[in-house]
């Protein structure tokens, strides 16, 4: 413990304060828990990515030749479930949010450190159930669990998959609850709501969705499991039930869940754009209100996933209209980031390159969302590759770009080491190119009419060229994602020690040592400045190397 620190003469940090497996598995330190999550989400990212690669390889040729139809259905189902529930939803809040929120608001920890650890254990239990589901033969419901297919017809491990989602859902609920209480109750003196970093605002909005939305999908999933076990009939038309009710309950959560994934990413991008433009954010209040607006209005639009599902014509009109309302705050975000760069002093380090990527890809993803909200067009493109491309632009192009940008931005703080800037830039470019090559062709495929979740398109060979491009892009993307994995690990051992504030960035997290000590602050900080006070910060972003 502490003795080891004294002997080597190192400063005591959260990383070296204690050693041994127990000091990690029983820790209540939000920073260590963040690292535990990091291991989990990274593992599931590569599991889900592996499934994705197999899916793409199968689609290289029109015939269903690489795997069996059943296997293919399991692959895209498990790709979806793993990526959505075990990677995208926890990734930014549970890793970066967990690590940074207490520090950014000047607190020693989250409000409920033990519940934070409980969240991680729930995530792990959910993850084990998911892993069991995969190893026991998989599940082929599609990530959406649509009834009555999932309840009455499939013979796979639907119940364990449902249970995995249910348990990980509670992990997400408790994380959100913890964040809300922390942001309300644990802010340092002087850290008023108008001084919160936008990263914190974004997580606040995200947490609201987690707390309000997740329980509804939890009960929907419980009803699916009960229906499968006891044939209750709540979603089974043969017994008088309505399968659309499941879709309503499912999308009540799962549409806002998209915002659980993207809002924290927006928070990261706000931090990065300000830092590398050396500027205050343009329109702080509008940016903060925009994330809250997205979180609230995001709850009013769910049935736009159901325009062709057999809902009432009038309900479809209402939901289409409301869907356009949610686009306005998203547009504000993009315009304000752009305006933030105006008259800045911009440098292009890795995080900023990822942020550029985010803005570009999120713009395309968001605008194609307008196509899907447009009733007449949605009828044609829903359930085709157009939708697949759209949500990958948001979730991969948006969330993962932002996450990668954030990991590079805060890696010096988290690990105390600098990553190699050249490789960082290279990987960012590769990810950007690989991503567009993978998913842009899918927009065209979708408008051509290729339905999603197709294992075999040999009757429609005209789709092959674009599928080949997409698969090629996926391989490039895989390289782009593996590279940071390697050099981050490399830098932990061989990287140069990071200074406390390698980017000369604003914010409380840059005023404490890298890596931080266990209790973050030696003294209670008192905040007397606005967020992004780059006019008061001396110096520029140091040019790398």
């Amino acid at each position, binding site marked *: 413990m502490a003795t080891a620190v004294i002997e080597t003469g190192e400063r005591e940090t959260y990383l070296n304060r204690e050693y041994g497996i127990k000091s990690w598995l029983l820790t209540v330190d939000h920073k260590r828990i963040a690292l535990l999550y990091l291991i989990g989400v990274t593992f599931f990212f590569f599991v889900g990515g592996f499934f994705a690669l197999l899916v793409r390889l199968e689609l290289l040729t029109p015939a269903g030749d690489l795997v069996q139809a059943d296997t293919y259905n399991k692959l895209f189902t498990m790709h979806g479930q793993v990526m959505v529930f075990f990677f995208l939803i926890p990734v930014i809040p549970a890793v970066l949010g967990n690590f940074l929120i207490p520090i950014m608001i000047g607190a020693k920890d989250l409000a409920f450190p033990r519940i934070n650890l409980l969240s991680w254990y729930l995530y792990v239990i959910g993850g084990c159930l998911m892993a069991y589901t995969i190893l026991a033969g998989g599940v082929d419901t599609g990530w959406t669990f649509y009834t009555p297919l999932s309840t009455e017809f499939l013979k796979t491990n639907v119940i364990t998959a449902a249970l995995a989602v249910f348990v990980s859902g509670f992990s997400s609920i408790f994380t959100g609850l913890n964040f809300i209480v922390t942001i309300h109750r644990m802010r340092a003196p002087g850290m008023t709501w108008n001084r919160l970093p936008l990263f914190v605002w974004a997580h606040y909005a995200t947490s609201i969705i987690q707390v309000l939305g997740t329980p509804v999908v939890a009960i929907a999933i419980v009803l699916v499991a009960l229906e499968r076990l006891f044939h209750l009939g709540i979603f089974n038309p043969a017994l008088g039930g309505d399968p659309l009710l499941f879709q309503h309950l499912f999308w009540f959560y799962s549409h806002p869940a998209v915002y659980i994934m993207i809002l924290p990413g927006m928070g990261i991008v706000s931090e990065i754009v300000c830092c590398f433009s050396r500027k205050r954010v343009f329109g702080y209040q509008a940016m903060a209100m925009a994330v809250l607006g997205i979180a609230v209005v995001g709850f009013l639009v769910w049935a736009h996933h159901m325009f062709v599902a057999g809902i*009432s014509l*009038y309900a479809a009109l209402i939901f289409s209209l409301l869907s356009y309302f949610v686009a306005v705050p998203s547009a504000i975000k993009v315009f304000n980031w752009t305006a933030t760069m105006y008259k800045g002093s911009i440098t292009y380090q890795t995080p900023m390159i990822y942020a550029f990527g985010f803005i570009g890809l999120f713009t395309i993803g968001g605008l194609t969302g307008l196509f899907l909200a447009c009733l007449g067009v949605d009828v044609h493109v829903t359930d085709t590759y157009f939708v697949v491309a759209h949500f990958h632009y948001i979730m991969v192009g948006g969330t993962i770009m932002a996450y990668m940008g954030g990991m590079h931005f805060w890696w010096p703080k988290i690990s105390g080491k600098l990553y190699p800037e050249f490789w960082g830039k290279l990987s960012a470019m590769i990810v950007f190119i690989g991503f567009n090559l993978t998913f842009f062709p899918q927009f065209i495929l979708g408008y051509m009419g290729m339905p999603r979740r197709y294992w075999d398109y040999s009757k429609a060979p005209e789709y092959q060229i674009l599928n080949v491009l997409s698969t090629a892009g996926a391989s490039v993307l895989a390289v782009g994602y593996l590279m940071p994995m390697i050099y981050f690990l490399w830098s932990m051992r061989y990287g140069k020690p990071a200074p406390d504030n390698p980017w000369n960035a604003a914010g409380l997290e840059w005023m404490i040592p890298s890596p931080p000590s266990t209790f973050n602050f030696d003294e209670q900080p008192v905040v007397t400045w606005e967020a992004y006070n780059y006019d008061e910060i001396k110096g520029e972003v140091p040019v790398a190397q």
Partner: protein
Amino acid sequence: MSDHNSSSEHISSIGSSVAIWLALLVGTALTVGAAYVDLGPFNVVVALAIASIKATLVVLFFMHVKYTHEKLTKMVIATAIFFFLILLVLSMADYGTRLWT
């Protein structure tokens, strides 16, 4: 430190608690009684109105929300009710208009 001053330090008196308790019991009797009277479509309305009054009494007095100086608690409750109603209303926007032509 945080943006409020005090949580519910209110100590409820036995008298007022018993009064609320009696009101809740009376409400239960009323709701059973009203169920046997034919009020047409208003049977449901009356039943839900009585239930809501009872729930409000519990929230305000038993859960001390009336005495708290904390606006946040009230906002949290309002949020829960709002989103619960969103779930019901927008779902029924579908079911209620399916037969319209």
